[in-house]
Protein backbone atom coordinates (compact mmCIF):
# COMPACT_ATOMS: atom_id res chain seq x y z
CA UNK A 1 0.00 0.00 0.00
CA UNK A 2 1.29 3.48 -0.80
CA UNK A 3 2.58 5.91 1.77
CA UNK A 4 0.81 9.24 1.84
CA UNK A 5 1.15 12.42 3.86
CA UNK A 6 -2.05 13.11 5.73
CA UNK A 7 -3.49 15.28 8.45
CA UNK A 8 -4.73 13.33 11.48
CA UNK A 9 -8.36 14.32 11.11
CA UNK A 10 -8.34 13.42 7.43
CA UNK A 11 -6.63 10.10 8.08
CA UNK A 12 -9.34 9.27 10.59
CA UNK A 13 -12.07 10.23 8.12
CA UNK A 14 -10.43 8.20 5.35
CA UNK A 15 -10.06 5.29 7.78
CA UNK A 16 -13.78 5.44 8.44
CA UNK A 17 -14.52 5.39 4.71
CA UNK A 18 -12.15 2.45 4.32
CA UNK A 19 -14.14 0.71 7.08
CA UNK A 20 -17.30 1.17 5.02
CA UNK A 21 -18.75 4.17 6.83
CA UNK A 22 -21.31 5.78 4.54
CA UNK A 23 -23.04 8.14 6.92
CA UNK A 24 -21.57 11.14 8.71
CA UNK A 25 -23.61 13.50 10.87
CA UNK A 26 -21.88 16.38 12.60
CA UNK A 27 -21.74 19.96 13.68
CA UNK A 28 -18.57 22.03 13.18
CA UNK A 29 -16.23 22.57 16.13
CA UNK A 30 -12.49 23.19 16.32
CA UNK A 31 -10.29 21.14 16.33
CA UNK A 32 -12.46 18.40 14.80
CA UNK A 33 -14.02 20.13 11.79
CA UNK A 34 -11.67 18.69 9.14
CA UNK A 35 -13.30 15.30 9.69
CA UNK A 36 -16.71 16.73 8.74
CA UNK A 37 -15.20 18.69 5.85
CA UNK A 38 -13.45 15.60 4.49
CA UNK A 39 -16.67 13.59 4.73
CA UNK A 40 -18.64 16.40 3.06
CA UNK A 41 -16.26 16.16 0.09
CA UNK A 42 -16.00 12.38 -0.11
CA UNK A 43 -19.25 10.75 0.99
CA UNK A 44 -21.58 12.13 -1.73
CA UNK A 45 -19.22 10.65 -4.33
CA UNK A 46 -19.48 7.25 -2.70
CA UNK A 47 -23.28 7.24 -2.53
CA UNK A 48 -22.93 8.03 1.14
CA UNK A 49 -24.76 10.53 3.28
CA UNK A 50 -23.29 13.64 4.83
CA UNK A 51 -25.54 15.90 6.89
CA UNK A 52 -24.41 19.02 8.70
CA UNK A 53 -26.83 18.86 11.59
CA UNK A 54 -28.30 21.87 13.36
CA UNK A 55 -26.65 20.85 16.63
CA UNK A 56 -24.71 18.03 18.22
CA UNK A 57 -27.98 16.86 19.76
CA UNK A 58 -29.42 16.40 16.31
CA UNK A 59 -26.17 14.94 14.98
CA UNK A 60 -25.99 12.16 17.57
CA UNK A 61 -29.66 11.35 17.02
CA UNK A 62 -28.99 11.11 13.31
CA UNK A 63 -26.29 8.62 14.26
CA UNK A 64 -28.95 6.76 16.29
CA UNK A 65 -31.18 6.65 13.22
CA UNK A 66 -28.37 5.87 10.81
CA UNK A 67 -26.96 3.05 12.93
CA UNK A 68 -30.49 1.64 13.25
CA UNK A 69 -30.48 0.96 9.52
CA UNK A 70 -27.48 -1.31 10.06
CA UNK A 71 -25.06 0.87 8.14
CA UNK A 72 -21.74 2.08 9.48
CA UNK A 73 -22.19 5.69 10.57
CA UNK A 74 -20.30 8.15 12.72
CA UNK A 75 -20.01 11.62 14.19
CA UNK A 76 -17.07 13.73 15.33
CA UNK A 77 -16.84 16.68 17.65
CA UNK A 78 -14.92 18.17 20.57
CA UNK A 79 -15.55 19.00 24.28
CA UNK A 80 -18.69 21.18 24.28
CA UNK A 81 -20.18 19.19 21.41
CA UNK A 82 -19.39 15.84 22.99
CA UNK A 83 -21.19 17.03 26.14
CA UNK A 84 -24.31 17.72 24.06
CA UNK A 85 -24.09 14.26 22.52
CA UNK A 86 -24.23 12.48 25.87
CA UNK A 87 -28.02 12.11 25.89
CA UNK A 88 -27.83 10.37 22.54
CA UNK A 89 -24.86 8.19 23.47
CA UNK A 90 -26.79 6.85 26.45
CA UNK A 91 -29.71 5.94 24.15
CA UNK A 92 -27.33 4.41 21.60
CA UNK A 93 -25.66 2.29 24.28
CA UNK A 94 -28.96 0.91 25.52
CA UNK A 95 -30.40 0.43 22.03
CA UNK A 96 -27.14 -1.44 21.24
CA UNK A 97 -26.42 0.45 18.07
CA UNK A 98 -22.90 0.14 16.69
CA UNK A 99 -21.36 3.45 15.66
CA UNK A 100 -18.22 5.52 15.94
CA UNK A 101 -18.03 8.73 17.98
CA UNK A 102 -14.88 10.81 17.73
CA UNK A 103 -13.69 13.36 20.28
CA UNK A 104 -10.82 15.48 18.97
CA UNK A 105 -10.33 16.85 22.40
CA UNK A 106 -9.65 20.33 23.68
CA UNK A 107 -9.47 21.93 27.10
CA UNK A 108 -12.49 22.74 29.25
CA UNK A 109 -14.51 23.21 31.37
CA UNK A 110 -17.07 25.43 29.71
CA UNK A 111 -16.09 26.75 26.36
CA UNK A 112 -12.49 26.31 27.52
CA UNK A 113 -10.08 26.74 24.67
CA UNK A 114 -9.17 25.12 21.38
CA UNK A 115 -5.78 23.90 22.52
CA UNK A 116 -5.27 20.16 22.93
CA UNK A 117 -6.24 18.50 26.19
CA UNK A 118 -7.13 15.12 27.66
CA UNK A 119 -9.54 16.43 30.24
CA UNK A 120 -12.57 14.62 28.80
CA UNK A 121 -11.12 11.33 30.11
CA UNK A 122 -13.68 10.97 32.89
CA UNK A 123 -16.54 11.78 30.54
CA UNK A 124 -15.30 9.26 27.98
CA UNK A 125 -14.46 6.38 30.29
CA UNK A 126 -17.32 6.63 32.80
CA UNK A 127 -20.14 6.46 30.30
CA UNK A 128 -20.71 10.19 30.14
CA UNK A 129 -24.49 10.29 30.01
CA UNK A 130 -27.18 8.91 32.30
CA UNK A 131 -27.48 5.28 33.28
CA UNK A 132 -25.13 2.32 33.69
CA UNK A 133 -23.25 2.08 30.45
CA UNK A 134 -19.76 2.33 29.03
CA UNK A 135 -18.33 3.16 25.68
CA UNK A 136 -15.13 1.56 24.54
CA UNK A 137 -12.54 4.31 24.11
CA UNK A 138 -9.53 4.06 21.79
CA UNK A 139 -6.70 6.56 22.10
CA UNK A 140 -4.48 6.80 19.01
CA UNK A 141 -1.00 8.29 19.27
CA UNK A 142 -0.10 8.81 15.61
CA UNK A 143 -1.74 9.80 12.35
CA UNK A 144 -1.37 6.16 11.27
CA UNK A 145 -3.37 5.08 14.30
CA UNK A 146 -6.00 7.72 13.57
CA UNK A 147 -6.67 5.76 10.38
CA UNK A 148 -6.20 2.30 11.85
CA UNK A 149 -8.36 2.91 14.91
CA UNK A 150 -11.23 4.18 12.78
CA UNK A 151 -11.30 0.72 11.19
CA UNK A 152 -10.81 -1.06 14.53
CA UNK A 153 -13.45 1.16 16.09
CA UNK A 154 -16.11 0.12 13.60
CA UNK A 155 -15.12 -3.54 13.95
CA UNK A 156 -15.41 -3.41 17.74
CA UNK A 157 -18.67 -1.48 17.51
CA UNK A 158 -20.19 -4.22 15.34
CA UNK A 159 -18.65 -7.02 17.38
CA UNK A 160 -20.28 -5.79 20.58
CA UNK A 161 -23.24 -3.83 19.12
CA UNK A 162 -22.01 -0.87 21.07
CA UNK A 163 -20.90 2.72 20.45
CA UNK A 164 -17.11 3.09 20.28
CA UNK A 165 -15.30 6.34 20.92
CA UNK A 166 -11.98 7.53 19.59
CA UNK A 167 -10.44 10.21 21.77
CA UNK A 168 -7.42 12.08 20.42
CA UNK A 169 -5.86 15.37 21.40
CA UNK A 170 -6.51 18.24 19.00
CA UNK A 171 -2.84 18.16 18.02
CA UNK A 172 -3.24 14.67 16.57
CA UNK A 173 -6.14 15.86 14.48
CA UNK A 174 -4.19 18.81 13.16
CA UNK A 175 -0.71 17.38 12.54
CA UNK A 176 0.54 15.71 9.36
CA UNK A 177 2.53 12.48 9.12
CA UNK A 178 3.23 9.97 6.39
CA UNK A 179 1.02 6.92 6.76
CA UNK A 180 0.48 3.63 4.99
CA UNK A 181 -2.96 3.44 3.36
CA UNK A 182 -5.16 0.43 3.99
CA UNK A 183 -7.27 -1.80 1.82
CA UNK A 184 -10.99 -1.00 1.92
CA UNK A 185 -13.07 -3.32 4.07
CA UNK A 186 -15.41 -5.20 1.77
CA UNK A 187 -17.16 -7.66 4.07
CA UNK A 188 -19.55 -6.08 6.50
CA UNK A 189 -21.47 -8.09 9.09
CA UNK A 190 -25.15 -8.94 8.69
CA UNK A 191 -27.50 -7.00 10.95
CA UNK A 192 -30.83 -8.79 11.05
CA UNK A 193 -32.03 -6.45 13.82
CA UNK A 194 -31.86 -3.34 11.63
CA UNK A 195 -34.92 -1.31 10.67
CA UNK A 196 -35.16 -1.60 6.90
CA UNK A 197 -38.89 -2.19 6.42
CA UNK A 198 -40.39 -5.49 7.56
CA UNK A 199 -40.94 -7.15 4.17
CA UNK A 200 -40.82 -10.91 4.63
CA UNK A 201 -40.14 -10.80 8.37
CA UNK A 202 -41.56 -9.63 11.70
CA UNK A 203 -41.19 -5.93 12.51
CA UNK A 204 -37.94 -4.89 14.18
CA UNK A 205 -38.09 -2.49 17.10
CA UNK A 206 -35.26 -0.24 18.32
CA UNK A 207 -36.16 0.87 21.80
CA UNK A 208 -34.72 1.90 25.15
CA UNK A 209 -37.89 2.13 27.26
CA UNK A 210 -38.37 -0.66 29.80
CA UNK A 211 -41.20 0.11 32.16
CA UNK A 212 -40.99 -3.15 34.09
CA UNK A 213 -38.34 -2.85 36.78
CA UNK A 214 -37.48 -6.53 36.42
CA UNK A 215 -36.91 -6.26 32.71
CA UNK A 216 -34.93 -3.03 33.10
CA UNK A 217 -32.66 -4.84 35.52
CA UNK A 218 -32.33 -7.73 33.09
CA UNK A 219 -31.33 -5.29 30.35
CA UNK A 220 -28.74 -3.77 32.64
CA UNK A 221 -27.32 -7.19 33.41
CA UNK A 222 -27.17 -7.88 29.71
CA UNK A 223 -25.19 -4.67 29.13
CA UNK A 224 -22.90 -5.38 32.06
CA UNK A 225 -22.16 -8.86 30.72
CA UNK A 226 -21.15 -7.26 27.47
CA UNK A 227 -18.89 -4.80 29.26
CA UNK A 228 -17.36 -7.64 31.23
CA UNK A 229 -16.53 -9.46 28.04
CA UNK A 230 -15.03 -6.26 26.56
CA UNK A 231 -12.91 -5.94 29.70
CA UNK A 232 -11.83 -9.54 29.31
CA UNK A 233 -10.96 -9.40 25.64
CA UNK A 234 -10.23 -5.89 24.50
CA UNK A 235 -7.78 -4.22 26.89
CA UNK A 236 -4.88 -2.85 24.91
CA UNK A 237 -1.67 -1.19 26.01
CA UNK A 238 1.85 -0.59 24.80
CA UNK A 239 4.62 -1.25 27.33
CA UNK A 240 8.00 0.35 26.70
CA UNK A 241 11.09 -0.68 28.71
CA UNK A 242 9.05 -1.62 31.73
CA UNK A 243 10.76 -4.98 32.48
CA UNK A 244 13.36 -3.54 34.83
CA UNK A 245 11.83 -0.09 35.34
CA UNK A 246 11.82 1.33 38.84
CA UNK A 247 9.78 4.30 37.67
CA UNK A 248 6.93 3.72 35.20
CA UNK A 249 5.40 6.69 33.45
CA UNK A 250 1.83 6.23 32.23
CA UNK A 251 0.50 8.41 29.42
CA UNK A 252 -1.86 8.02 26.47
CA UNK A 253 -2.39 9.53 23.05
CA UNK A 254 0.13 11.83 21.47
CA UNK A 255 1.26 12.64 24.99
CA UNK A 256 2.65 9.11 25.24
CA UNK A 257 4.95 9.68 22.27
CA UNK A 258 6.37 12.73 23.95
CA UNK A 259 6.82 10.80 27.17
CA UNK A 260 8.61 8.03 25.28
CA UNK A 261 11.21 10.51 24.11
CA UNK A 262 11.81 11.71 27.65
CA UNK A 263 12.04 8.11 28.87
CA UNK A 264 14.70 7.31 26.25
CA UNK A 265 16.74 10.32 27.31
CA UNK A 266 16.48 9.45 30.97
CA UNK A 267 17.54 5.86 30.17
CA UNK A 268 20.67 7.30 28.57
CA UNK A 269 21.39 8.88 31.93
CA UNK A 270 21.07 5.43 33.49
CA UNK A 271 17.66 5.92 35.08
CA UNK A 272 15.59 2.74 35.09
CA UNK A 273 12.42 4.24 33.73
CA UNK A 274 9.77 2.82 31.41
CA UNK A 275 6.42 3.75 29.98
CA UNK A 276 2.96 2.25 29.66
CA UNK A 277 0.59 3.67 27.09
CA UNK A 278 -3.06 2.67 27.53
CA UNK A 279 -4.49 2.26 24.03
CA UNK A 280 -7.95 1.43 25.27
CA UNK A 281 -8.87 4.00 27.90
CA UNK A 282 -11.94 1.93 28.64
CA UNK A 283 -11.55 -0.95 29.25
CA UNK A 284 -8.49 0.37 31.09
CA UNK A 285 -5.48 -1.96 30.66
CA UNK A 286 -5.00 -2.49 34.37
CA UNK A 287 -3.16 -5.81 33.91
CA UNK A 288 -0.29 -4.06 32.16
CA UNK A 289 -0.02 -1.74 35.15
CA UNK A 290 -0.32 -4.61 37.64
CA UNK A 291 2.48 -6.49 35.88
CA UNK A 292 4.72 -3.47 36.11
CA UNK A 293 4.14 -3.18 39.85
CA UNK A 294 6.40 -6.22 40.29
CA UNK A 295 9.50 -4.18 39.47
CA UNK A 296 8.24 -0.59 39.65
CA UNK A 297 8.65 1.26 42.91
CA UNK A 298 6.71 4.26 41.72
CA UNK A 299 4.41 5.43 38.93
CA UNK A 300 4.07 8.81 37.29
CA UNK A 301 0.92 9.76 35.44
CA UNK A 302 1.43 12.40 32.76
CA UNK A 303 -1.77 13.88 31.39
CA UNK A 304 -2.95 17.02 29.68
CA UNK A 305 -5.49 17.50 32.44
CA UNK A 306 -5.58 18.12 36.15
CA UNK A 307 -5.36 14.38 36.78
CA UNK A 308 -8.05 11.98 35.60
CA UNK A 309 -6.45 8.77 34.31
CA UNK A 310 -4.38 8.75 37.51
CA UNK A 311 -7.48 7.42 39.29
CA UNK A 312 -7.50 4.32 37.08
CA UNK A 313 -3.77 3.85 37.60
CA UNK A 314 -4.27 4.03 41.35
CA UNK A 315 -7.09 1.49 41.15
CA UNK A 316 -4.81 -0.86 39.20
CA UNK A 317 -1.82 -0.33 41.48
CA UNK A 318 -4.10 -0.93 44.48
CA UNK A 319 -1.86 0.80 46.95
CA UNK A 320 1.24 -1.28 46.17
CA UNK A 321 3.22 1.72 44.93
CA UNK A 322 2.88 5.49 45.04
CA UNK A 323 1.50 7.24 41.95
CA UNK A 324 2.65 10.77 41.24
CA UNK A 325 1.20 13.23 38.78
CA UNK A 326 2.45 15.70 36.25
CA UNK A 327 -0.08 17.54 34.13
CA UNK A 328 -0.91 20.72 32.32
CA UNK A 329 -4.07 21.87 30.60
CA UNK A 330 -4.32 23.28 27.09
CA UNK A 331 -0.55 23.12 26.92
CA UNK A 332 1.10 19.84 25.95
CA UNK A 333 4.13 19.24 28.17
CA UNK A 334 7.29 19.04 26.08
CA UNK A 335 9.86 16.22 26.28
CA UNK A 336 12.31 18.39 28.19
CA UNK A 337 9.74 19.16 30.87
CA UNK A 338 8.93 15.48 31.36
CA UNK A 339 12.60 14.52 31.30
CA UNK A 340 13.22 17.03 34.10
CA UNK A 341 10.31 15.58 36.07
CA UNK A 342 11.65 12.04 35.65
CA UNK A 343 15.13 13.13 36.71
CA UNK A 344 13.73 15.03 39.70
CA UNK A 345 11.93 11.93 40.93
CA UNK A 346 14.89 9.66 40.15
CA UNK A 347 17.29 11.88 42.11
CA UNK A 348 14.89 12.33 45.01
CA UNK A 349 14.26 8.57 45.26
CA UNK A 350 17.79 7.53 44.37
CA UNK A 351 16.79 5.37 41.30
Amino acid at each position, binding site marked *: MPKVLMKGNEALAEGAIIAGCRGFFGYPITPSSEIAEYMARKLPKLNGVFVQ*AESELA*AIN*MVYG*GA*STGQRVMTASSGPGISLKQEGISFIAEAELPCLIVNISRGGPGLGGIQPAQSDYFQATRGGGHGDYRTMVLAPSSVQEMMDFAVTGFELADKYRSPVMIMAEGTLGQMMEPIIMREPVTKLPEKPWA*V*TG*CRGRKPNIINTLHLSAEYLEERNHHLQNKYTSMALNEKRAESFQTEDAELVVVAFGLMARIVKKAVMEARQQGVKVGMIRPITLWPFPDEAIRQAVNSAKRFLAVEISMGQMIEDIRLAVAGRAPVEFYGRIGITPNPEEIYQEIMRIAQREGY
Partner: protein
Amino acid sequence: MKVIARRPESLTEAKFHYCPGCTHGIIHRLIGECLDELNLRENAIGICPVGCAVLAYEYFNCDMLEAAHGRAPAIATAIKRLQPNNTVFTYQGDGDLASIGMGEIVHASLRGEKITVVFVNNAIYGMTGGQMAPTTLLGQVTTTSPYGRNKDFEGYPAKMAELLSQNEGSAYICRTAVNNPANVIKTKKAIKKALQIQQQGLGFTMVEILSTCPTNWGLSPLDALDWVEEKMIPYYPLGEFKVKED
Protein backbone atom coordinates in the same frame (compact mmCIF):
# COMPACT_ATOMS: atom_id res chain seq x y z
CA MET B 1 -71.12 -12.67 6.46
CA LYS B 2 -69.30 -9.64 5.18
CA VAL B 3 -66.60 -7.87 7.17
CA ILE B 4 -67.19 -4.15 7.02
CA ALA B 5 -64.62 -2.98 9.58
CA ARG B 6 -61.50 -4.63 10.93
CA ARG B 7 -58.25 -3.77 12.57
CA PRO B 8 -55.83 -2.44 9.97
CA GLU B 9 -52.99 -4.86 9.31
CA SER B 10 -50.62 -2.00 10.08
CA LEU B 11 -51.71 -2.09 13.72
CA THR B 12 -50.72 -4.93 16.04
CA GLU B 13 -53.18 -6.68 18.30
CA ALA B 14 -51.81 -5.00 21.42
CA LYS B 15 -54.40 -3.12 23.46
CA PHE B 16 -53.89 0.66 23.51
CA HIS B 17 -53.02 2.02 26.95
CA TYR B 18 -54.62 5.42 26.29
CA CYS B 19 -57.17 6.90 28.72
CA PRO B 20 -60.88 6.58 27.94
CA GLY B 21 -61.88 9.23 25.41
CA CYS B 22 -58.32 10.07 24.41
CA THR B 23 -58.06 10.60 20.66
CA HIS B 24 -54.47 9.32 20.33
CA GLY B 25 -56.08 5.96 19.54
CA ILE B 26 -58.15 7.36 16.66
CA ILE B 27 -55.03 8.88 15.15
CA HIS B 28 -53.15 5.57 15.43
CA ARG B 29 -55.97 3.84 13.61
CA LEU B 30 -55.99 6.44 10.84
CA ILE B 31 -52.25 6.03 10.28
CA GLY B 32 -52.74 2.26 10.23
CA GLU B 33 -55.50 2.53 7.64
CA CYS B 34 -53.43 4.84 5.45
CA LEU B 35 -50.40 2.52 5.56
CA ASP B 36 -52.67 -0.40 4.63
CA GLU B 37 -54.41 1.42 1.80
CA LEU B 38 -51.14 2.67 0.32
CA ASN B 39 -49.62 -0.78 0.81
CA LEU B 40 -46.77 0.68 2.82
CA ARG B 41 -46.70 -1.47 5.95
CA GLU B 42 -43.71 -3.55 4.92
CA ASN B 43 -41.88 -0.49 3.71
CA ALA B 44 -42.61 1.88 6.57
CA ILE B 45 -40.36 2.86 9.45
CA GLY B 46 -42.02 4.76 12.28
CA ILE B 47 -40.46 6.73 15.09
CA CYS B 48 -42.36 7.34 18.29
CA PRO B 49 -41.87 10.19 20.70
CA VAL B 50 -41.52 10.56 24.41
CA GLY B 51 -45.03 11.43 25.49
CA CYS B 52 -48.21 9.43 25.89
CA ALA B 53 -47.47 7.77 22.54
CA VAL B 54 -44.11 6.48 23.76
CA LEU B 55 -45.34 2.90 23.46
CA ALA B 56 -46.58 3.33 19.88
CA TYR B 57 -43.87 0.88 18.74
CA GLU B 58 -46.05 -1.79 20.30
CA TYR B 59 -49.06 -0.68 18.28
CA PHE B 60 -47.75 -0.17 14.75
CA ASN B 61 -47.13 -3.39 12.92
CA CYS B 62 -44.07 -2.17 11.02
CA ASP B 63 -40.43 -1.45 11.81
CA MET B 64 -40.37 1.04 14.67
CA LEU B 65 -37.98 3.07 16.77
CA GLU B 66 -38.43 4.91 20.01
CA ALA B 67 -36.68 8.28 20.12
CA ALA B 68 -35.31 10.50 22.85
CA HIS B 69 -37.70 13.34 23.74
CA GLY B 70 -38.01 15.65 20.71
CA ARG B 71 -35.36 14.00 18.55
CA ALA B 72 -37.53 11.91 16.24
CA PRO B 73 -37.05 14.20 13.21
CA ALA B 74 -33.25 13.87 13.46
CA ILE B 75 -33.54 10.08 13.62
CA ALA B 76 -35.98 10.10 10.72
CA THR B 77 -33.60 12.28 8.71
CA ALA B 78 -30.77 9.77 8.84
CA ILE B 79 -32.99 6.78 8.15
CA LYS B 80 -34.60 8.40 5.14
CA ARG B 81 -31.27 9.63 3.74
CA LEU B 82 -29.65 6.23 4.08
CA GLN B 83 -32.73 4.31 2.88
CA PRO B 84 -34.57 6.68 0.54
CA ASN B 85 -36.94 3.93 -0.57
CA ASN B 86 -38.48 3.52 2.84
CA THR B 87 -41.49 5.52 3.98
CA VAL B 88 -40.48 7.21 7.22
CA PHE B 89 -42.87 8.79 9.68
CA THR B 90 -42.62 10.31 13.13
CA TYR B 91 -45.43 10.55 15.67
CA GLN B 92 -44.92 13.43 18.10
CA GLY B 93 -46.76 15.34 20.82
CA ASP B 94 -46.65 19.10 21.30
CA GLY B 95 -44.09 19.06 24.09
CA ASP B 96 -41.95 16.68 22.06
CA LEU B 97 -42.21 18.58 18.78
CA ALA B 98 -42.77 22.23 19.68
CA SER B 99 -40.75 22.57 22.88
CA ILE B 100 -37.76 20.28 23.44
CA GLY B 101 -37.69 19.24 19.78
CA MET B 102 -38.28 22.67 18.23
CA GLY B 103 -34.78 22.72 16.73
CA GLU B 104 -35.04 19.27 15.17
CA ILE B 105 -38.48 19.85 13.62
CA VAL B 106 -37.68 23.28 12.16
CA HIS B 107 -34.44 22.07 10.61
CA ALA B 108 -35.94 18.87 9.25
CA SER B 109 -38.49 21.11 7.54
CA LEU B 110 -35.86 23.61 6.35
CA ARG B 111 -33.80 20.79 4.87
CA GLY B 112 -36.90 19.46 3.17
CA GLU B 113 -36.47 15.99 4.64
CA LYS B 114 -38.78 13.62 2.82
CA ILE B 115 -40.53 12.36 5.92
CA THR B 116 -44.06 12.54 7.30
CA VAL B 117 -44.64 14.00 10.74
CA VAL B 118 -47.87 13.27 12.58
CA PHE B 119 -48.07 16.00 15.19
CA VAL B 120 -50.58 15.47 17.98
CA ASN B 121 -51.49 18.82 19.50
CA ASN B 122 -53.43 18.33 22.72
CA ALA B 123 -52.37 21.64 24.29
CA ILE B 124 -50.85 19.85 27.28
CA TYR B 125 -48.15 17.51 28.52
CA GLY B 126 -50.27 14.42 28.85
CA MET B 127 -47.72 11.86 29.93
CA THR B 128 -46.14 13.81 32.75
CA GLY B 129 -49.45 14.77 34.29
CA GLY B 130 -50.85 17.92 32.76
CA GLN B 131 -48.12 20.55 32.68
CA MET B 132 -48.16 23.53 30.32
CA ALA B 133 -47.22 22.79 26.72
CA PRO B 134 -45.96 25.29 24.14
CA THR B 135 -49.42 24.90 22.61
CA THR B 136 -51.37 25.49 25.84
CA LEU B 137 -53.96 28.19 25.15
CA LEU B 138 -53.96 31.60 26.82
CA GLY B 139 -55.93 31.37 30.04
CA GLN B 140 -55.71 27.56 30.09
CA VAL B 141 -55.06 26.16 33.55
CA THR B 142 -52.40 23.46 33.81
CA THR B 143 -50.34 22.23 36.75
CA THR B 144 -47.50 24.60 35.83
CA SER B 145 -49.76 27.48 34.78
CA PRO B 146 -52.12 27.17 37.75
CA TYR B 147 -53.47 30.71 37.31
CA GLY B 148 -54.06 30.23 33.61
CA ARG B 149 -51.49 30.77 30.86
CA ASN B 150 -50.62 34.46 30.92
CA LYS B 151 -49.02 36.01 27.84
CA ASP B 152 -46.90 38.28 30.03
CA PHE B 153 -45.21 35.38 31.77
CA GLU B 154 -45.72 32.27 29.65
CA GLY B 155 -45.88 33.87 26.23
CA TYR B 156 -48.05 32.74 23.37
CA PRO B 157 -49.07 29.29 22.12
CA ALA B 158 -46.99 27.98 19.20
CA LYS B 159 -48.70 27.70 15.83
CA MET B 160 -46.53 25.01 14.31
CA ALA B 161 -48.41 24.46 11.06
CA GLU B 162 -48.23 28.17 10.26
CA LEU B 163 -44.57 28.34 11.30
CA LEU B 164 -43.40 25.36 9.27
CA SER B 165 -45.45 26.31 6.23
CA GLN B 166 -43.08 29.28 5.83
CA ASN B 167 -40.15 26.98 5.08
CA GLU B 168 -39.28 26.27 1.46
CA GLY B 169 -38.46 22.69 2.42
CA SER B 170 -42.02 22.00 3.51
CA ALA B 171 -44.05 20.28 0.82
CA TYR B 172 -47.25 19.59 2.70
CA ILE B 173 -48.45 21.20 5.92
CA CYS B 174 -52.00 20.70 7.13
CA ARG B 175 -53.92 21.10 10.38
CA THR B 176 -56.89 18.88 11.15
CA ALA B 177 -58.82 17.74 14.19
CA VAL B 178 -60.38 14.45 15.31
CA ASN B 179 -63.26 15.89 17.31
CA ASN B 180 -66.10 14.71 15.03
CA PRO B 181 -66.58 12.14 12.24
CA ALA B 182 -66.22 14.70 9.44
CA ASN B 183 -62.92 15.91 10.84
CA VAL B 184 -61.72 12.36 11.38
CA ILE B 185 -62.28 11.65 7.70
CA LYS B 186 -60.44 14.85 6.75
CA THR B 187 -57.57 13.87 9.02
CA LYS B 188 -57.25 10.51 7.32
CA LYS B 189 -57.18 12.18 3.92
CA ALA B 190 -54.48 14.55 5.10
CA ILE B 191 -52.28 11.76 6.47
CA LYS B 192 -52.66 9.86 3.22
CA LYS B 193 -51.81 12.91 1.18
CA ALA B 194 -48.74 13.59 3.32
CA LEU B 195 -47.52 10.01 2.83
CA GLN B 196 -48.10 10.25 -0.91
CA ILE B 197 -46.22 13.53 -1.15
CA GLN B 198 -43.38 11.88 0.77
CA GLN B 199 -43.39 9.07 -1.77
CA GLN B 200 -43.20 11.61 -4.58
CA GLY B 201 -40.11 13.01 -2.88
CA LEU B 202 -41.36 16.59 -2.81
CA GLY B 203 -40.15 17.46 0.68
CA PHE B 204 -41.11 17.66 4.31
CA THR B 205 -44.71 16.81 5.23
CA MET B 206 -46.61 17.34 8.46
CA VAL B 207 -50.17 16.88 9.63
CA GLU B 208 -50.92 18.71 12.88
CA ILE B 209 -53.89 17.09 14.56
CA LEU B 210 -55.91 18.74 17.32
CA SER B 211 -56.44 15.96 19.84
CA THR B 212 -58.04 15.57 23.25
CA CYS B 213 -56.63 14.90 26.69
CA PRO B 214 -59.76 14.47 28.82
CA THR B 215 -57.68 13.27 31.77
CA ASN B 216 -55.49 16.34 32.11
CA TRP B 217 -58.01 18.83 30.83
CA GLY B 218 -60.30 17.63 33.61
CA LEU B 219 -63.20 17.10 31.19
CA SER B 220 -65.40 14.20 30.24
CA PRO B 221 -64.56 12.65 26.85
CA LEU B 222 -67.56 14.38 25.26
CA ASP B 223 -66.85 17.77 26.82
CA ALA B 224 -63.26 17.40 25.64
CA LEU B 225 -64.50 17.08 22.05
CA ASP B 226 -66.49 20.28 22.52
CA TRP B 227 -63.44 22.01 23.98
CA VAL B 228 -61.51 21.25 20.79
CA GLU B 229 -64.30 22.86 18.77
CA GLU B 230 -64.86 25.87 21.03
CA LYS B 231 -61.38 26.70 22.28
CA MET B 232 -58.75 25.08 20.10
CA ILE B 233 -60.06 25.46 16.56
CA PRO B 234 -60.60 29.26 16.86
CA TYR B 235 -56.90 29.67 17.77
CA TYR B 236 -55.61 26.81 15.61
CA PRO B 237 -57.54 27.12 12.34
CA LEU B 238 -57.92 23.93 10.33
CA GLY B 239 -56.86 23.56 6.72
CA GLU B 240 -53.95 23.10 4.37
CA PHE B 241 -51.19 25.66 4.86
CA LYS B 242 -48.81 24.44 2.21
CA VAL B 243 -49.23 22.10 -0.72
CA LYS B 244 -46.28 21.80 -3.05
CA GLU B 245 -47.25 20.44 -6.46
CA ASP B 246 -44.67 18.56 -8.51
